[in-house]
C-alpha cells in the first residue's frame, strides 16, 4: 500500500509542477506590462517602475523568476491581493469553508438522490420508472445551471417567497466564526432561527450545484448495476433461490458501487466549475465568486494564486479518491 501511495505521489509531482508553470506563465503572457499589472499601479515614474520591477523580481532571468516563485510558494507566499492588500493565501483560506460547505451539501444531495435512482432504474430496466428517471437525468446533465439557478430564484424566491435570493445567512444574526461552516456555526451559536436561516440560504445553491453530478451519478449507477446484474455470480445467486433483494443488496450492489464511488470523487472538478457559476448567481461568498470578481477587477495576483490553489485542491481530492479506490478495490492496488 505504501508503494502504491508513493507511486501516485511521484506521478502527481510533474503535474503539480506543470500547474505552477501555468500559474507563473499566465501573468507573463497577459497583454501589457507585467510589472504594472502585478503592482496594480498606473502612470509610474521610471524610477518607481525600476524599483517595483526589482521588488517583484521581474528584472531577473526568467528561470530564476520561476525558481523564486516556487520558493515563495513553498513558504506559503502566494502574493498580495491588489484589491484588499492582504495575502492571497489568507484571502482564499477564509473563503474556502463557504465553497466546501456548498460543495459537500451538493455532492451529498446528488448522491442521496442519484444513487438510488440509478440502482432502481437498473433493477426495473425498461419500466416507466427507468425511462422517466433516465430522461430526467439526461435533462439534468444537459442543464445550463446558471439558467437553472435563475429559474429557481424566480419560482422559490420571487413567486413563492420561500427562500432568500443571495448570501449565506440573514444579516439579523451575528455569531462567532468557529468552523467557518454556516450550518454548524449557526447551531453552535444557539440563536433561534439562525440554523433555519442558514439552511434556507443554502438550499437553492446546493440544488443547482448538485444537478449535473446527480445526473452523472444516476446514469453511472444504472450502467454499473446493469453490468453487474448480467454477471455469472448474480445468476448463480438467483439460481440458488435467494430473494431478489438479497441478490441485489448483497451481491450486486457492493460490486456496482466501486465504479460509482470513483465517479462521485471525480465530480469534484465539475463541482469547482459549477461553483464559479452557482456562487456568482447566488452571491455566495466562496472561491468561485472570488475568482470571477478577481478576473473582472484585474486583480492578477489573486487570479494567479486562486488558479494554483484551486487546481492543487482538485488534485488533492482526486488523489484521495484514487487512494480510497485502491483501498476498496485491491485489484487496482496490486496491478
Amino acid at each position, binding site marked *: 500500500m505504501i508503494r502504491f501511495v508513493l507511486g501516485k505521489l511521484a506521478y502527481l509531482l*510533474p*503535474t503539480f509542477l*506543470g*500547474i505552477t*508553470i*501555468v500559474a507563473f506563465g*499566465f501573468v507573463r*503572457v*497577459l*497583454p501589457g506590462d507585467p510589472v504594472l499589472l502585478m503592482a496594480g499601479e498606473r502612470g509610474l515614474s521610471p524610477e518607481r517602475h525600476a524599483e517595483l520591477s526589482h521588488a517583484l523580481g521581474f528584472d531577473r532571468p526568467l528561470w530564476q523568476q520561476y525558481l523564486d516563485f516556487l520558493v515563495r510558494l513553498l513558504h506559503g507566499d502566494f502574493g498580495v491581493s491588489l484589491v484588499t492588500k492582504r495575502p492571497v493565501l489568507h484571502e482564499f483560506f477564509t473563503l474556502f469553508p463557504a465553497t466546501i460547505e456548498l460543495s459537500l451539501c451538493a455532492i451529498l444531495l446528488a448522491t442521496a438522490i442519484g444513487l438510488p435512482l440509478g440502482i432502481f432504474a437498473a433493477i426495473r430496466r425498461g419500466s416507466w420508472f427507468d425511462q422517466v428517471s433516465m*430522461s430526467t437525468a*439526461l*435533462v439534468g*446533465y*444537459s*442543464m*445550463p445551471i*446558471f*439558467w*437553472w439557478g*435563475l*429559474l429557481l*430564484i*424566480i419560482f422559490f*424566491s*420571487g413567486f413563492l417567497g420561500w427562500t432568500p435570493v443571495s448570501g449565506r445567512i440573514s444579516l439579523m444574526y451575528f455569531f462567532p466564526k468557529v468552523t467557518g461552516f454556516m450550518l454548524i456555526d449557526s447551531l453552535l451559536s444557539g440563536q433561534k432561527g439562525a440554523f433555519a436561516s442558514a439552511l434556507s440560504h443554502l438550499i437553492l445553491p446546493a440544488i443547482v450545484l448538485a444537478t449535473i453530478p446527480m445526473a452523472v451519478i444516476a446514469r453511472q449507477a444504472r450502467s454499473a448495476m446493469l453490468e453487474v446484474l*448480467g454477471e455469472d455470480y448474480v445468476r448463480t445467486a438467483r439460481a440458488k433461490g435467494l430473494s431478489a433483494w438479497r441478490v441485489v443488496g448483497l451481491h450486486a450492489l457492493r460490486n456496482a458501487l466501486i465504479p460509482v464511488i470513483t465517479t462521485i470523487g471525480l465530480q469534484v*472538478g*465539475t463541482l*469547482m*466549475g*459549477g461553483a*464559479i*457559476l452557482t456562487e*456568482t448567481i447566488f452571491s455566495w461568498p466562496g472561491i468561485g465568486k472570488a*475568482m*470571477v470578481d478577481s*478576473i*473582472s477587477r484585474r486583480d492578477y495576483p489573486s*487570479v494567479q494564486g486562486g*488558479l494554483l490553489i*484551486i*487546481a492543487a485542491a*482538485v*488534485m488533492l481530492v482526486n488523489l484521495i479518491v484514487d487512494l480510497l479506490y485502491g483501498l476498496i478495490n485491491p485489484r487496482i492496488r496490486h496491478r
Partner: protein
Amino acid sequence: MTTTTEIEPAAATGTIAALREFWHYFSENRGAVIGLWVFVALVLIAVFAPLIAPHDPIEQVRDALLKPPSWAEKGDPRFLLGTDAVGRDILSRLIFGARYSLFIGVIVVVVALSGGIVIGLVAGFFGGWVDTVIMRVMDVILAFPSLLLALVLVAVLGPGLTNAMIAIALVLQPHFARLTRGAVMGELPREYVMAARVAGAGKARLMFRTILPNCLAPLIVQATLSFSGAILDAAALGFLGMGAQRPTPEWGTMLAEAREFILSAWWVVTFPGLAILITVLAINLMGDGLRDALDPKLKRS
C-alpha cells in the same frame, strides 16, 4: 491491378451495409431519433434565420420595452415571445442565437478534435519520451476545472467570442488526445498494422490511413459530447461577461443582460435558457444513440 478492381466494389457495399447497420441500431433508440430531428430543425433555423426571424435581432423598438409574450396579459401581438429591456424582439434574437451556438459548437469541436487527433496519434505512435511529455502536458490541462481554465484564458486573451472559442477548444482538446492515444496503442500491435508496415507504408500513412479509421468510433461519441459541452461553456462564459459581447444575440449573453429582471420580467430570462437546454439536450440524446450504435460491447446484449 485486378485485385484492386475486385476489392473496390466490395468496400463500397461494405460502407453502405455498415451505414445501414448503424442506422438500424441508432433508430432503435427513440430518444436519439427525436434528438436528431430537433437538431436538424435547429440547423435549418440557424441557416434560414434572416428569413424566419420576424424582426431584426438588434433593432430596438422604443415603444415596446419589456413587453411580455403575446399570449400573456399586456402582451403585444407583434412580439410572440415578448421584448427585452431595450425593446428587441426576443424570438428573433433566439433565432439568430441558434447560429452562434451551432457555429461555436462546430468550430470548437473541429479545432479540438483535429488538434487532439494529431497530438494523440503522435503520442501513441511514437511512444517513449514523446508520449510522456505530451501526456503530462495534457494532465496539467486536465488538472484545472475546465470552466476555470477557460475563464482565465479568456482573461489573458481578452473577452470576446473568438477568444472564448479558442479557450474552450484548448480545454476540451486533451480528451481527444487521450482517447486517440489509447485507441492507437490498442491498434498498434494488431496484425493489419504490421502488414501495412511490412508492405512499406510510411509513418504518416500508417498513422492517418491505417490506424486512425479504426479508432474513430469513440472519437465520434466524444465529439458529440464536446459539441454540447462547448455550447454550454460558451454560454456560461457569455453569462459571466467573458464570451460574446453585447449586443450579440448569443444565448448566454442574453441571459447575462436579463439577470437584473429576474423578479420583474420572467420571459427575458426563461426563453434563452430554454433554447440552450433544448439544443444541448438534443445533441446529448444523439450522443447517447451514437454511443449505443457504435459501441460493439453494448451491441451484443
